[in-house]
């Protein structure tokens, strides 16, 4: 019993920070609480939810957030696997190389978000200069709605791939090397080794990286807020940013809370589905390995 007492402070903190807000949002989502009501909560019979269901801007932001998450997480997993395979090789100055590869992940997102704004600046940034001199036209990487979201994806990949690579590297280190030797003796090339040994045995780690990265990407905020401010033409606006605008720019706390709780339901069901898919894929591959 005294064991439980030790856990209580942490659990209280967790409940205060994670559970209380959700109750508060649920309650607020049934109230009008904005400048119009003098920032006093007045029940409004689900008007927030009516608005939420028909909010095309939210729908667009949800689409953008999902597009951003899926593309960047997929790229991060592929690239992270490549980097993990590189870092797994025996090499000199391994510690130094690993630290250098980690640096993008350790820097504050906002620091490099502005750095990217300079690098992708039109017309003075280096990328725009390159496209001007090679293609003869400006790329306008942050001003063109159809390109800007890819630019933010690129910045996200740069920052979080090291995290994915490290998790996958941990996985690579658990694979016994005699598996590869046995496969080589039977004449398997490195491609077959990768497909038949590395990837199946790495699946739990791939699943883990996928889950954590998806959850983080769904909440993308810092990067977009600083790099593009949601623009151009709201093309890079994420749902977290939209909720933020609603609360602190439009001062509509009731609707912002509705967005939060609505997004929470949508995103956690997506994460749950991913988790189910990942675990079934893992179990199936374990069965086929056992055979």
């Amino acid at each position: 019993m005294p064991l439980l007492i030790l856990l209580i402070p942490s659990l209280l903190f967790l409940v205060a920070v994670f559970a209380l807000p959700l109750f508060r949002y649920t309650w607020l989502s049934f109230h009008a609480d904005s400048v119009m009501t003098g920032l006093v909560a007045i029940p409004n019979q689900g008007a927030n939810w009516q608005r939420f269901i028909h909010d095309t801007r939210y729908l667009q932001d949800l689409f953008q957030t999902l597009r951003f998450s899926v593309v960047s997480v997929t790229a991060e997993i592929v690239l992270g696997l490549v980097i993990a395979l590189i870092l797994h090789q025996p090499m000199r100055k391994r510690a130094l190389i690993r630290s250098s590869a980690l640096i993008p992940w350790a820097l504050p997102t906002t620091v490099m978000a502005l750095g990217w704004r300079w690098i992708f600046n039109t017309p003075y940034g280096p990328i725009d200069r390159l496209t001007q001199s090679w293609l003869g036209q400006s790329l306008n990487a942050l001003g063109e709605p159809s390109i800007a979201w890819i630019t933010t994806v690129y910045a996200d990949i740069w920052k979080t791939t090291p995290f994915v690579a490290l998790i996958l590297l941990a996985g690579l280190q658990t694979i016994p090397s005699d598996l590869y030797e046995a496969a080589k003796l039977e004449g398997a090339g490195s491609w077959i080794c990768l497909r038949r040994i590395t990837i199946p045995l790495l699946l739990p780690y791939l699943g883990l990286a996928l889950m954590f990265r998806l959850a983080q990407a769904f909440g993308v905020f810092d990067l977009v807020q600083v790099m593009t401010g949601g623009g151009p033409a709201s093309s890079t606006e994420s749902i977290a940013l939209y909720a933020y605008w609603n609360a602190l720019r439009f001062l509509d706390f009731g609707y912002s809370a509705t967005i939060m709780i609505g997004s929470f339901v949508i995103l956690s069901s997506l994460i749950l589905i991913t988790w189910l898919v990942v675990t079934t894929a893992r179990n199936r591959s374990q069965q086929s390995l056992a055979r």
Partner: protein
Amino acid sequence: MKATRFLILALLVWSLAPLTWQLYTSFCTDQALVTPFASLNQRWTLDHYQSVLNSNPPFIRYLLNSLFVGGLSTFLTLLLAIPSSYSLSKMGRRSSLVIKFFLIGCALFPYVLLFLALLEIARYLQLGNSLIALAVPYAALSQPLAILLLTNAFSDLPAELEDAARVEGLSVVQRFRWILLPLISPAIASTAILVFLFSWNEYPIALTWISDSGKLTLPVAMARIAGSSIHSVPYGPYAAATVIGSIPLILLVMVFQKPIVSGLTTGAVKG
């Protein structure tokens, strides 16, 4: 072998090129930035660094603020997480699994969505603009990761060790102080660094809680430079600020590469 070397080189360029560009920008005069190929009588300058260091409040202030919040929240996190993870490691399999699932759920929660409620709490308790108060949500948000990492460390210790100490008549506090804590110190170090990095880099909560310009943390101060105007960001001073703001973290990663990697990877292996 040659291919590996080429790939390593590519990896280094990929990770470090953007920072190198910021370093280059920070030493260029404004004119050199706009017309890179023209011959200029003055190409290099330290002006940007001077303007950043002499601004009001001076840039060092933000670094100190971040350092303070990072240190305090790391301390708070460990204070809460070490006893919790000890008790979690001693618990029955089923109940500890339930709590672990709850913790993983919290860790997967997109915490940005919490900022509005946290802001309300801060307003209600009049905690806005307090760096000490800011450490509280950071410590709470760090609990899942810290508890999971430390529970693994405690579970890895052989149970006989503590039993022997108990037979010798050591109290719980003595066992903690002289036997358990020294043995899990590597895990504590990794956890501490990961929590510190999180608090140092955290943005949305700091953005909404702190408005007093003398109390901004580094990420918010950086973003404010951009927030002034979408079109005329002072890129030279900004690049200088990036460089100064990155140095502590680059040193941190270089020095603590081992505990960072082991923290992230043991989390992955056991989680």
